[in-house]
């Protein structure tokens, strides 16, 4: 059993904070980030609640000190902010000193710019620069440029599990010795496109989302970006680096059931968790906290709960909670912010509360942790599932 791949830096921006510290304080002080949308004009503004970062694009441009002719999408800007924090946190000063890569994740890339200017491109030449933003790889491209990173840069887009898969690929690239160092994570800004897509699918709640509650009505969308720095043990030893935690297990499987719905038995989720346990060499009973995907849609929580019951069988399911009542569902960034939260849980020995929970689901006897709990945390399991039956599990362990 290997001890896993070292995490040496983290950066995050979400509706509950602009840094790792701010996010942690919000999590332990029950400061939720769900509110009415202000940065995008949408006819649903009075109906939906979202996890919106309360910074305008102009403020983000200023914070990043971008030139006037920049063509950053909102997603690229929050991605760059989080990635820069992560690199700084890892104490990296010369980005190309070792074989360094960037594996990013996004669901719709720079859609926020595409939808804003779609019909104006032909009449407003000054907007043409935004056309390339639409590309899914544009966010990673921008981050790499801002970091000065020249090596391998790629992007994964598997809907809501995207960032988990970016972390997984990064861990494998380190493990196989193909890279010495890799920045992994994801970014997704709120977009009218996504809001209306989820609205059409009828899985948006008009209230605060209530994961694993019997009366849950759906999800709140959110926006966020988070990146982590993974480094080889050789570099960690050579530079005497502080290891925040380790990626000890990962698994990806496909539910192969339906394009947008999860199977009732949670086949994909079950297989993803099983693979992650196999890779880590850990037994399910060794997990101290599960950060569930817990989107609060009727379908997800039922499927995920069933999969957890299958994994744990007669054993007690460990303390679990969804942090989506704090942040909303941040789609391709979700697994990245939840990876940061998982590492913080390990560092601070806490289980975050699953807010808004009232009544246990009738299908099984699963009750999330509803208040902040202090206890020793050695291993955290984090689930993320996406459209297309894409199911991913990551396990983080104390170093």
């Amino acid at each position: 059993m290997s001890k896993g791949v070292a995490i040496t830096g983290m950066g995050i921006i979400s509706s509950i904070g602009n840094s790792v510290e701010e996010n942690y304080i919000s999590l332990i002080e029950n400061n939720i980030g769900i509110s009415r949308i202000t940065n995008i004009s949408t006819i649903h503004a009075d109906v939906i609640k979202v996890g919106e970062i309360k910074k305008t694009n102009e403020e983000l441009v200023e914070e990043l000190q971008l030139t006037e002719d920049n063509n950053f999408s909102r997603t690229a800007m929050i991605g760059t902010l989080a990635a820069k924090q992560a690199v700084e946190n890892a104490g990296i000063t010369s980005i190309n000193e070792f074989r360094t890569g960037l594996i990013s994740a996004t669901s719709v890339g720079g859609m926020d710019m595409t939808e804003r200017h779609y019909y104006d491109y032909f009449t407003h030449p000054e907007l043409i620069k935004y056309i390339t933003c639409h590309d899914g790889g544009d966010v990673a491209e921008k981050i790499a440029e801002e970091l000065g990173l020249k090596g391998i840069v790629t992007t994964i887009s598997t809907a809501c599990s995207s960032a988990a898969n970016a972390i997984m690929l990064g861990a494998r690239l380190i493990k196989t010795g193909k890279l010495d160092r890799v920045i992994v994570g994801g970014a997704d800004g709120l977009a009218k496109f996504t809001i209306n897509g989820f609205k059409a699918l009828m899985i948006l709640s008009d209230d605060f989302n209530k994961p694993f509650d019997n009366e849950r009505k759906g999800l709140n969308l959110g926006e966020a970006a988070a990146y982590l720095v993974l480094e080889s043990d050789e570099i960690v030893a050579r530079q005497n680096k502080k290891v925040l935690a380790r990626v000890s297990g990962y698994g990806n499987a496909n539910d192969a059931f339906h394009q947008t719905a999860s199977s009732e038995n949670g086949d994909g989720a079950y297989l993803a968790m099983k693979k992650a346990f196999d890779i880590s060499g850990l037994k399910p009973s060794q997990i101290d906290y599960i950060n569930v995907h817990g989107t609060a849609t009727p379908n997800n929580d039922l499927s995920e709960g069933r999969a957890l019951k299958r994994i744990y069988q007669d054993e007690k399911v460990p303390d679990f909670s969804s942090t989506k009542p704090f942040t909303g569902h941040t789609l391709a960034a979700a697994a990245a912010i939840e990876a940061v939260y998982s590492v913080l849980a390990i560092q601070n020995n806490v289980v975050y509360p699953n807010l808004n929970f009232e009544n246990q689901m009738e299908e099984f006897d699963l009750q999330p942790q509803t208040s902040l709990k202090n206890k020793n945390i050695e291993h955290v399991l984090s689930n993320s599932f996406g459209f297309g039956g894409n199911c991913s599990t990551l396990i983080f362990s104390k170093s």
Partner: protein
Amino acid sequence: MKRTYINGVGCISTQKTFDTVFLEEAVVNHNQNVLAIVPPVYKDYISPAASRRMAKGVKNGIVASALALKDANIENVDAIITGTGLGCIEDSEKFLKSILDNNEEYLTPTSFIQSTHNTVGAQIALLQQCKGYNFTYVNGAVSFESALLDAKMQIEEDEAQSVLIGGVDENGDYTTALFKLNGRIKADNLAPYDLLNSTTSGAVYGEGASFFVLENERKDNTYAEILDIAIVNTLEENEIEAEIKSFLKANNLEISDLDALVLGFDGNADFENYYRNLAENAFAEIPQLYYKHLSGEYDTASAFALWMASKIIKTQEIPEIIKVNSVEKPVYNTLLLYNQLNGKNHSFTLISK
């Protein structure tokens, strides 16, 4: 460490690349700046009822993957990994237009669902009931190579014995118009389009789906072995040769060991020196090939190049239509593919008999 072999190929492209031996029916279209695929008979693979609801990219992905599986003579794979630049862009266009045109009202989710980048990989998994590893890469010109690199790691580490990989992109009318506006596609009035002697910027665009079955063992029907893949985001023109030399050296090869070099010439005069410098100097004595005059340029066009290179090794024949120079070799066993876009997203793929 297990080796990776290409044991089956399937290609839907702007040429007739199914039901043919190897490009014998290929035609260079000098008159159009956007090329459309030659469609297969979809009903042979997908029921007409299902087909009507499917995006073009999904249909082409399904057919190309079915062809590759049949060619490899296997029914199931352990993993499915796809690459796509823009996904099912027609559905993205459709959903976005209905949001804008109807002020966010009267929307149905179908086109939103299909616009998700991993739709093609997911639909193939659903059809095959493949519950294994399923990734989709979306990073411009290295989307397909990312899938290839991942698949090779899966096989090397024994996480999978067989992997279906593919590169798929489709043309969408509005996006095509936007690409003409921002110069990604050559202007309409510049025909005839000649990729090798172009003095204008922009590319002749295309679409397609090329799929491959990779396995960890050599079989009678093996096309080639994937020796190595490298992806580099940023390189200057004058760094390419050294980069290739060190890539070859890592595989115990030198330039003279190569039997052909496949280059991504797309007619964009602004960046063709990345290829031209190699072609005229270090690789002058190596047979040089190109393909985007046949496939068109698109983010995953390099998957068409891998299809072409696989066919060359298997048939030991290089069709005249893809030759850049007249250099010949007695055998075609070791090929290097190099592609880039606008000086970014460089990829190097090395395959051998």
